[in-house]
């Protein structure tokens, strides 16, 4: 990924002279502060986008809860469908009936929250995913991390948990020399880290792609010489295609995060399987 980012940075400056082509860059994810600059409560554009997504999601879910009826309206049906999917399609499927019932609310929360914070990337005027800066994916991943860590230690004890995770049964003893360090890394570092990076990198890359396509279109249409204007149509079509793709990715990444939450919980709580 780093090579991709740096190659972007090397390609783009070719066009980035006075002609007005604004290439997207990593600086997009660290916009200037709007409020409280330099404090731990600094608020910039992306933070505001997150607040908006959060406020919208909270409004929707609180209204849905307040108005929840036995005979559901259209809005309630959609929310129930997602809840049902998180419960039956993810939690019960992976964790089984009993654990699934216990963890379905967490998985549902994660699915809804990450989707709403992802989808801002394709909402006009917001134009950036709330999850495209690492802090939010990291906090979600840490939530999952501590959830499986604490619940597994609670139900299996420290020894039971470590034995189940680091010394998986059914393997010849000498394999543990290699396996145990790998498993240790898996449980304590790689699982939360991959959760974080997968989400944040996907959303970041999506934003860069969209921004690149649309700023190139704008440049080609309004500033490039005659023949090059045709290329603008190509970049516009590309931008549209990536836009649709990003909607899909926003949902897919929310689903992946939710399903991996269930998988990691299952691995931690039922190591023998």
């Amino acid at each position, binding site marked *: 990924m*780093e090579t991709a*980012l*740096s190659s972007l*940075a090397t390609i783009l400056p070719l066009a980035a002279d006075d002609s007005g082509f604004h290439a997207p*860059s*990593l*600086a997009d*994810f*660290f916009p200037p502060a709007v409020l*409280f600059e330099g*404090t*731990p*409560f*600094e*608020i*910039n554009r992306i*933070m505001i986008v*997150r*607040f908006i997504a*959060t406020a919208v*999601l*909270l409004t929707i*879910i*609180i209204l*849905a*809860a*307040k108005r*929840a*009826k*036995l005979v559901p309206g259209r809005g*309630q049906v959609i*929310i*129930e469908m997602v*809840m*049902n999917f998180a419960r039956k399609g993810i939690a019960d499927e992976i964790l089984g009936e009993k654990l699934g019932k216990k963890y379905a*609310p*967490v998985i*549902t*929360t994660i699915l*809804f*929250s990450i989707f709403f*914070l992802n989808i801002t990337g394709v909402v006009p005027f917001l134009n950036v995913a*709330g999850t495209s*800066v*690492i*802090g*939010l994916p*990291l*906090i*979600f991943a840490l*939530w999952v991390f501590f959830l499986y860590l604490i619940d597994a230690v609670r139900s299996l004890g420290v020894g039971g948990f470590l034995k189940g995770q680091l010394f998986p049964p059914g393997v010849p003893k000498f394999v543990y020399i290699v396996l145990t360090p790998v498993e240790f890394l898996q449980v304590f*570092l790689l699982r939360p*880290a991959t959760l974080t*990076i997968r989400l*944040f990198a996907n959303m*970041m890359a999506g934003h860069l792609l969209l921004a690149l396509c649309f700023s190139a279109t704008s440049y080609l249409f309004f500033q490039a010489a005659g023949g090059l204007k045709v290329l603008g149509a190509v970049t516009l079509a590309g931008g549209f295609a990536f836009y649709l793709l990003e909607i899909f990715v926003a949902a897919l990444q929310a689903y992946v995060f939710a399903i991996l939450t269930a998988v990691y919980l299952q691995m931690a709580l039922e190591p023998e399987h």
Partner: protein
Amino acid sequence: MISGTIAGLLTAAEEAETPNPLLPETYDIVWSLFIVIILGVVFLKYALPKIQAVLDERTELVEGGLAKAEAAQAEAAAAKDEYQQQLTEARTEAARIREEARAEGTAIVAESRTRATAEAARIVENAQRQIDAERQQASVSLRNEVGELATELASKIVGESLADEARRSRVVERFLDELEASTAADAGKGN
């Protein structure tokens, strides 16, 4: 491996003079934590339990309704069975009664016929007997009367009193025989 990547990104970031995207800013963490906590609390403590309660209630209602419908159906089926059974019983009963009535009717007719036959026979016999008796009586009285008449007539004609009982009886017998013989001869002639 990760640390290598981070280090690589760090140097890349320094060169490009943009922040390293893998290292979160303090404010990023603070606000992310804020958002996740709020979302978590609202979802887990308020919204999801409430919606789930409604969902559970609905499931219960639907299942209750189904169970009720099933019970009603079973009841209806039982009632129908019972009705069918009663109907069958009633039909059997009716058939039995009809059969009995027919048998009884046949018996009554046969008995009546027997009785009537007996009665007729009895009546015929009585009549016969009466006829016999009357004929006998007629014959006896006729015989007496004819005897007296003949005797009287004969005594008048002969002028001789046939006081002697034995003689008179003999004369009457002879007269009657003659009379009978002449009647038979008349009858043979007449024929």
